């Protein structure tokens, strides 16, 4: 079809635009496969590179997953302690019922839950070791409790609400930990920044790892690159296989990161579940969902291409036939 690619005598190569585009896309399609099979020819070296990239990618992502769970738990009012209002009167008493009504009607209160003396006893005795302690009492020593979840997010507002409730009839004492909440959100704020910094550092590391791996490959293929340029391969033609190598290194690294993350979550799921139960919550570390997994693969591929691009381009330009 492009038989006329070379004029028989006079002019240097003339290829029309459509042919050139077709050749370009053919080269890309061919490299997509051939670079992977070249890499797979050295499975040991490839696996180590993939592992390094996978570990570097999985660390910040695991951290961010944990952080996300903790902050989401916050909004699910798991770690944010509901106020415990300890009753000075029996929970069946009129005073207690009236208090319950008042709290339910209050606009500052989100959720109200009554834990009767019996319910408290049952819950308490189900905790390991406490059953025997409670048996020592002839009657139930536990007071009734009303759990109040404030609408207010802000520590000072919650404190005010607590003071108001403490003034009501039938209330023995109100307990909540405002300081804990403030500290938690401060810690979360710090962790978030640490995470961003780590994310940037580890991404940089991945770019450098890929760039360095490719540089070594280029050094080994110096002769081939010189010959290719001598026969008219352009800088971008010579660079293209390395872009695809970078892509595969990053993509494979992301695949390993995915496996590392999911198995770490599996490993952590048991203790996390126990922690969650102690907060009467059903929160659990969630695995990466479909969209996030795709995002992870895209990130790996992108870092690979970027790593190849920034480190290889200038280096390849320096290699000229002699």
């Amino acid at each position, binding site marked *: 079809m492009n038989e006329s690619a070379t004029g028989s*005598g006079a002019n240097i190569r003339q290829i029309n635009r459509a042919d050139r585009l077709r050749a370009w896309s053919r080269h890309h399609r061919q490299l997509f496969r051939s670079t992977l099979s070249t890499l797979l020819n050295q499975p040991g070296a490839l696996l180590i590179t993939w592992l390094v990239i996978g570990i570097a990618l999985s660390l910040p992502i695991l951290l961010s997953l944990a952080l996300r769970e903790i902050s989401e738990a916050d909004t699910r009012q798991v770690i944010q302690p509901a106020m415990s209002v300890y009753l000075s009167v029996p929970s069946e008493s009129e005073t207690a019922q009236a208090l319950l009504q008042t709290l339910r009607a209050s606009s500052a209160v989100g959720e109200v839950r009554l834990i009767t003396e019996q319910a408290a006893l049952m819950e308490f005795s189900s905790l390991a070791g406490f059953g025997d302690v409670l048996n020592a009492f002839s009657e139930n020593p536990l007071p009734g409790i009303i759990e109040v979840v404030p609408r207010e997010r802000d520590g000072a507002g919650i404190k005010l609400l607590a003071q108001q409730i403490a003034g009501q009839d039938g209330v023995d004492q109100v307990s909540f930990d405002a300081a804990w909440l403030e500290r938690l959100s401060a810690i979360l704020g710090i962790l978030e920044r640490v995470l961003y910094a780590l994310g940037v550092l580890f991404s940089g590391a991945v770019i450098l790892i890929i760039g360095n791996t490719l540089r070594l490959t280029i050094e080994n293929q110096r002769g*081939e690159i010189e010959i290719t340029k001598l026969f008219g391969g*352009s800088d971008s033609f010579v660079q293209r296989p390395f872009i695809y190598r970078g892509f595969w290194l990053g993509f494979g690294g992301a695949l390993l990161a995915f496996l590392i993350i999911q198995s770490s979550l599996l490993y952590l799921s048991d203790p996390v579940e126990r922690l969650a139960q102690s907060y009467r919550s059903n929160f659990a570390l969630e695995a990466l969902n479909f969209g996030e997994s795709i995002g992870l693969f895209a990130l790996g591929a992108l870092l690979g291409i970027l790593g190849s691009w920034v480190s290889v381009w200038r280096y390849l330009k320096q290699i000229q036939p002699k």
Partner: protein
Amino acid sequence: MLVFDHVSKRYPNGYEALSDVSFSVEAGEFVFLTGPSGAGKSTLLKMINGVERSSRGQVHVAGQNISRLPARKIPGLRQGIGVVFQNHQLLFDRRVYDNVALPLVIAGMKPTEVGRRVRAALSKVGLTGREGDWPETLSGGEQQRVGIARAVVHRPPMLLADEPTGNLDPDLSREIMSLFLQFSQLGVTVLIATHDLELVESMPARRLQLQAGRIQSP
């Protein structure tokens, strides 16, 4: 096809490899470039495919002024020039097929067309059926012929050869030279640098003689 117009080449260390060289070669001509080693033969060839640039004067290839060619146009120039080296410069981790196919892959040719042309080029140099071999399993002469197949597989209008018979015995050398002669009869401009005077004299071809960077008048 090829014009050197008062071309000089001085390297950064002050060494002048070519001094005021002028000549022209017609399309389809077969030219020997002779002279002792160090006379500037290799430098002259490298100026034709843009590996070296002239310090003064101009080099024209197919009407293009190479001395003023921007870097991004160098690949296009080189795609139209086949090159043969003394030490073949084959890729030893690639089979004969892939070595010969290189210029076609660079040109972006379809795989079916590549296969056809590679086989045609190999049969022309007498290596039919050897495309699956590894270069190191071939003899010196065979390796050189693979190098020649690679240089002509994309049917370039011009062919440059730097001491193509340097490592070969006289019989093989004559065989290789007659191959080059065939190409020139097909319209390819052929320029061969060699110091093998005996061989040059046995062939009916024009001679450009270089001596210490200057063209000697015949």
